[in-house]
């Protein structure tokens, strides 16, 4: 296969053959997709879309070898979903995938919120936004809680200026950076309604589904493994009961709520070990979370959260 380099671009003859499999293996994208499968539980629609995008980019690369030019595809994305559904995690992974496919040159992620883009006085916004954009060039610009950029109730808000610059860059520097917006579904819908230009410049609108109880359980176990903890068989059962109970309560934030629950379990485990500190401990004691660490949770005892009104 002839190498496409900057100096001598040799295109293949019309009847030449290219091997998609070979190109696929060369891109190492499979490793990233595998990692995605292992580390992210559920999220089937998201994974499917990522797979589709990688296929498009790979085929595009083969087409280039035949000198079949096509416009660089727009890859700006919008992630919507409830809290804790993995938007930021996927965005981070997205930068890696796009880098493997050679779509972005550096593959770094610049994560910003309104504060980093919008200035405090007239003339402050443009340089601030441009600074962020320059930093994100060659990688992915991730704007978390993007709906805050636009505040319709304040007509003197500078957010609009920032959006305008972003739109321009999203259009003119498509090969230099990928913009990913993220936010809650209803608020993002309002945001797009008032900024129709933004909606049309984003090719991929991905909606992150809520996790099921089973998926949350798997996520919990994965988190514990990363933190070097394990659940006793009893604790496993209790966690199984805990998750649906917690899901029915207010302020449920999917994986984030599970993380918080696990953090509180660690706290109680430490306290439990500390209470009878005269006893000598084994490694198993240190890494095992028992059922009682979770059973004292207010979700069980009172059916409500800490700090929640009755």
């Amino acid at each position: 296969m002839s190498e496409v380099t900057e100096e001598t671009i040799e295109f293949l003859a019309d009847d030449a053959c290219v091997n998609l499999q070979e190109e696929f293996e060369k891109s190492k994208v499979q490793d990233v997709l595998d990692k995605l499968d292992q580390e992210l539980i559920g999220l089937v629609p998201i994974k499917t879309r990522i797979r589709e995008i990688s296929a498009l980019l790979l085929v595009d690369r083969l087409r280039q070898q035949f000198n079949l030019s096509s416009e660089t595809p727009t890859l700006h994305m919008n992630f919507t979903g409830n809290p804790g559904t993995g938007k930021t995690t996927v965005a981070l992974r997205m930068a890696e995938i796009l880098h493997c496919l050679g779509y972005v040159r550096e593959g770094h992620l610049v994560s910003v919120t309104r504060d980093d883009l919008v200035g405090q006085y007239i003339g402050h916004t443009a340089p601030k936004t441009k600074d962020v954009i320059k930093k994100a060039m060659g990688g992915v610009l991730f704007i978390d809680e993007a709906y805050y950029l636009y505040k319709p109730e304040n007509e003197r808000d500078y957010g609009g200026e920032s959006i305008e610059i972003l739109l321009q860059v999203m259009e003119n520097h498509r090969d230099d950076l990928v913009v990913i917006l993220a936010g809650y579904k209803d608020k993002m819908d309002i945001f797009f309604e008032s900024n129709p230009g933004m909606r049309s410049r984003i090719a991929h609108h991905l909606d992150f589904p809520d996790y099921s109880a089973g998926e949350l359980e798997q996520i919990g176990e994965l988190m514990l493994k990363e933190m070097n903890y394990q659940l006793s068989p009893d604790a496993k059962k209790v966690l199984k009961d805990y998750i649906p109970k917690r899901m029915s309560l207010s302020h449920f934030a999917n994986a984030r709520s599970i993380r918080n629950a696990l953090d509180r379990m660690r706290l109680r485990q430490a306290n439990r070990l500390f209470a009878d500190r005269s006893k000598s401990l084994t490694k198993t004691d240190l890494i095992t979370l028992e059922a009682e660490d979770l059973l004292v949770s207010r979700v069980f005892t009172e059916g409500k959260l800490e700090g929640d009104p009755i």
Partner: protein
Amino acid sequence: MPMSNPGNRVTQGQFSFLPDLTDEQIKAQLKYAIDNGWAVNLEYTDDPHPRNTYWEMYGMPMFDLKDPAGILMEVNECRKTFPNMYIRVTAFDATHGWEAPRMSYIVNRPSSEPGFNLVRTELHGRNQGYSIVSYATDKPEGERP
């Protein structure tokens, strides 16, 4: 017209004896600076006198960039704002012991470079003092093209 320097091209900084760098070449040089962790900034002036060391800064120096595309964007904006001035890119190395510009090259020139006038001054005895004055700065600042 002097044979050694047709067009009176100002030769300051790197690459100044070569034909003007293309955007692709500028990008490659910028990438080199970024990869070395140097902060890149843009400066402009209309006075090409070699002793005119400190040029006006265009915006702030650019730190923490990963890709030259952002700087090139700024270069093009500077060219649009000052099409008839000298613009140079400087890469500053902040490492202890260096703390100095490591690269500096011109990325934009005025359409015509009038060159320099050699001024001779009679000094005491039969001594001669020599200095140069750029024709480009003949007029007051506001009236230059």
